[in-house]
């Protein structure tokens, strides 16, 4: 098990390097000349463009080095927890500091949404499968199609208007993060969860249908087990593997969708940081965020694999 774990983690490194190298190189070339930007904004504007200052900044940022050396340098620093500074924001805060403050909120929000999508989506999928091709099946599948088709930047404001402003069921979110179990978290988590609902419902439904057609289900019925027992004991447990995979993949999608949800609900999280960084052209922040989010997604998929192994003894790695 330990060996498998180590090998899995090692196999992630090449992908991590390629992804970060891509973002670093594209970002450095695409964002324009950072030293020119700094010399233009920080220098004495009455004197015109300060070439000396420009050269100083170039040197400071190591921009005269070849790109691979700069990337290697950045990666080396990143491995030591230093992701450079965000020069676009006031006071040049270190990117690592920004990320450290933003990530916990977003992870909690994603976790809440993931729990919601699981406890809503899986039962709906099971019910749809049990009544497959019936009225209830159609209603559930098209209903979740509709909820998942509405983009989160439309669903969220509508939800705010209806639930918070008109019905006043939940308190207004206001500014910031109120904690995982706060009432204010319900609505953002719910809106985020809807992004992945259709996938979970669908996979559960198909997976249950497949198991229902297996011989051992017929055998269980033949033994005289009630339909409820057949479903609960035999079908659900065997149908859960693909569902876990999809829930795992949904996790990455949810992290992506925080970019909209956090902006609308005013949560100072990871998604907010990235969307602001993109709008301001703050390439150092975005590059750092790409590294961190890739690590998060990879660790997440590793976690899913481990859960997989725990649940299904056939997948357990023997070596």
């Amino acid at each position, binding site marked *: 098990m330990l060996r498998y774990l180590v090998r899995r983690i090692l196999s992630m490194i090449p*992908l991590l390097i*390629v*992804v970060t190298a891509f*973002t670093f190189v*594209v*970002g450095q*070339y*695409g*964002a*324009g000349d950072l030293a020119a930007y700094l010399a233009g904004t920080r220098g004495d504007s009455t004197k015109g463009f300060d070439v000396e200052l420009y050269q100083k900044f170039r040197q400071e940022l190591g921009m005269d080095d070849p790109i691979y050396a700069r990337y290697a340098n950045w990666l080396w620093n990143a491995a030591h927890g230093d992701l450079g500074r965000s020069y676009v924001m006031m006071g040049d805060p270190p990117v690592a500091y920004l990320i450290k403050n933003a990530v916990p909120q977003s992870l909690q929000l994603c976790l809440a949404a993931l729990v919601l999508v699981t406890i809503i989506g899986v039962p709906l999928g099971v019910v749809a499968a049990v009544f*497959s*091709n019936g009225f209830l099946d159609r209603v559930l599948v*098209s209903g979740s*199609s*509709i909820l998942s*088709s*509405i*983009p989160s*930047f*439309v669903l969220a*404001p*509508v939800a*705010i*208007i209806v639930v918070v*402003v008109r019905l006043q069921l939940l308190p207004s979110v206001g500014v910031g993060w109120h904690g995982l179990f706060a009432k204010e978290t319900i609505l953002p988590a719910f809106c985020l969860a809807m992004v992945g609902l259709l996938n979970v419902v669908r996979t559960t*439904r*198909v997976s249950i*249908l*497949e198991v229902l*057609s297996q011989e051992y289900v017929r055998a269980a019925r033949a033994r005289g087990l009630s339909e409820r027992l057949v479903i609960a004991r035999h079908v659900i447990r065997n149908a859960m593997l693909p569902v876990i995979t999809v829930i795992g993949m949904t996790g*990455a*999608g949810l*992290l*992506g*969708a925080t*970019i*909209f949800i956090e902006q*609308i609900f005013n949560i100072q999280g990871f998604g907010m940081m*990235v*969307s602001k960084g*993109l*709008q301001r*052209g703050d*390439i150092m922040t*975005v590059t750092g965020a*790409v590294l961190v*989010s*890739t690590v998060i*997604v*990879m660790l997440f*998929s590793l976690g899913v694999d481990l859960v997989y192994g725990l649940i299904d003894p056939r997948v357990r790695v023997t070596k």
Partner: protein
Amino acid sequence: MDTSTIVPADISPGGAPAGARRAKRSRSFWDDAWYKFRHNWAGMAGLTVFVLLCLAAIFAKQIAPYDYLEQDWTAILQPPSAAHIMGTDDLGRDIFSRVLMGGRTALMVAMAISLTGAIVGLLVGAFSAFAGGKVDALVVWVIDGVMTFPAIWLAAFVSVATAPALKNLAGSLYNATGWEFLRNEVMISYAVVVFAIGMINWTWPARLVRSQVLSLREREFIEATLALGARPRWIIMKHLVPNVLGSMIVLVTLSFGNAMLFESSLSYLGIGIRPPGASWGAMIFQGMSKVRTHPYLVLAPGITLAVVVLALQFMGDALNDALNPKSRNK
């Protein structure tokens, strides 16, 4: 389902004798698929919405009661009325006209993205499967890598990072050719969006084509055709393409909706289509600050976007049921 082609022997050319069953022409695969699609209400509803959208986009200038850029300072933030059926925005522009033009944008961008995605995916997937070995492993690894990353972030990043470079490129092309559209900022933002979303969108078709080619290569009938001396071109045109086409159509339909959603998302984030170009996403973003007092600013483009995405989703599902009978869940 009657697919019988056997003509009863006693039918004379002059006409069938009384009582004899009229021989039906056998239904081809496509007839059959169309029959199934036609009887799927969700698919037909999706198709109807999609056709309406296409018509609205093509004739946007004729349908729109106002110019989509025309600002009327005497009619700012008007709620929906007879004069402005979807109201007006904070510059007094008619929202219905802007939604129509936004539909044109969304359609054009989505068409470009899904077509390039399908072509690039087809080439990469087929190349990877035929090359095999290390090349194949590398391609699969790249596809998996692109897919692990949150797609919208990647598109947003590429959009931001390549916009200046593409603008420079267009500028130097303009200097060389003198074509006026190369200086059009809106046009360039179209190109940036297509490029950014295209970076991600090719992975699905590539994966599909690769797996299809790999599984087909092992099949006996291909081996038999090869043994009969068929050229690769024959195999590709007669066996590969018909086998992949069904799944490809489904995939392109679904990716079409996805591309529209991505275009709106990027524009919503302020890094997609630049003003004055009309985009549903940008309209939603502009309306967001006034959503509590003027919800129709968000609802008009928002509901349109949601309905279109849903229509394409339903259409894709129905096509899948019709074209891939084997994959249908019981």
